């Protein structure tokens, strides 16, 4: 069976979780040359752009990473990006217009990490979850990510009720059954394989005075 590896703790300059979903060509017969319409299903993707690596000579983690193309599965904790809701961000809403965070690390601890629990069960394959936001407040918005177990979901739509319970439509569909009181992570985990290694390999070179700027990694979700 496959071993799940930890993605090395490297500085990154970009990270985006997205859920492109699936589509079918020519779903509508509108006479257009190329029309696509959404399909059920689809996999989530995580794009990671590593920052300039200054430590590669002492710790060649990038080199190690670039050899993991034969279906190895990585577990990545999402870095603190605008997609991840933290207490800091909530304070920032109240006090200042933006909360800038120029350097993102894979394993960087987050001050004021938030946590809550699911308050309703949901079955694998469905798209609606319910959880308690009474303590946190209605700061989770469409475009944020939430996590359950080792899976990340994008908040597609959200509705708060008077008691502070949030009903959220997620994308992609749930990968695992959710039970009442299961922990909800605001800084989730992503499990996937790197799908564009040949692309990422191209810039392992001497162009930057000994520092390495690897290409962007595109990871597709591993789902068993």
């Amino acid at each position, binding site marked *: 069976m496959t071993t799940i590896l930890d993605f090395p703790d490297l500085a990154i300059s970009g990270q985006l979780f997205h859920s492109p979903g*699936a589509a079918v060509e020519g779903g*509508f*017969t*509108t006479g257009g040359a190329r029309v696509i*319409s959404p*399909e*059920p*299903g*689809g*996999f989530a*993707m995580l794009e990671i752009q590593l920052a300039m690596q200054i430590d590669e000579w002492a710790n060649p983690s990038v080199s190690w990473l670039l050899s993991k*193309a*034969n*279906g190895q599965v990585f577990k990545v904790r999402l870095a603190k990006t605008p997609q991840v809701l933290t207490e800091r961000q909530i304070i920032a809403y109240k006090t200042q217009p933006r909360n800038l965070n120029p350097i993102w690390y894979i394993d960087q601890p987050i001050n004021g990490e938030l946590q809550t629990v699911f308050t309703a069960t949901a*079955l*694998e*394959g*469905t*798209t*609606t979850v319910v959880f308690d936001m009474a303590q946190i407040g209605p700061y989770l918005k469409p475009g944020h990510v939430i996590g359950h177990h080792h899976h990340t979901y994008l908040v597609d739509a959200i509705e708060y009720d008077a008691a502070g319970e949030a009903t959220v*439509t997620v994308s*992609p*569909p*749930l990968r695992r059954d959710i039970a009442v009181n299961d922990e909800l992570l605001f800084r989730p985990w992503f499990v996937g394989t790197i*799908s564009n*290694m*040949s692309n990422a390999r191209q810039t392992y070179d001497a162009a930057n005075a000994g520092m390495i700027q690897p290409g962007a990694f595109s990871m*597709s*979700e591993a*789902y*068993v």
Partner: protein
Amino acid sequence: MSDFYTELDALLGDQQDLTDIRVTARRCWFYDFNGYPLRVWQGQGKMFDSLGNEWLGTITPGGNDLHQTPAIQDGRDGTSASYSFSLVIPDIPGQAAFELYDALKADQWRVNRRPLTCYLALFLEGEGMRPSTPLTFFKELTMMSPKFSETIEQDNNGVLVRKYKATIITKDGNFGRWNIPNGTYADAIQKERAKQQGVALDRGSEFLALLANRTYQLPK
């Protein structure tokens, strides 16, 4: 009418414009291998039907379909089209790719004369991968002979990938009809049978227009 078609009618409803109609129906295939039932559907990720069965999606994140299926048409008496299905054997949790492949290869009775059933799944908006409309039956074929191939390919990352591929030849219900005593269900034969039973004229099969004037020669 089954829930599937009731739901489908409701979706088609009074819409006037094709672009207003959003119906997503996908094919699901149930390979009833003896001891190794395999459910796959034409899509990405796992799909769950209303009975709780799990269907594995055959389309990869890269968009390749690992399951090649021919278009199926209605059978006609006197024809026996072969349909060939090929599937790169998936790695099912708790059942390694090779194990399933090997089991099918070692024991052909697991495949031979077993049914392959096609169902249709209807996905409504907001249902995700768990459609609540029961699957509807679409077609049943009989699996005949399996073929196996193993290939090793190098992908663009320099990784050697070994693929186990099984191709299953199937036939529809018209296969082997001449084996059945008293022959096939066609107008001339029906009239002949009726005569033997003492009925002067039985027009019950005259609607089988295509078969009216065919001559069949059966091997003696």
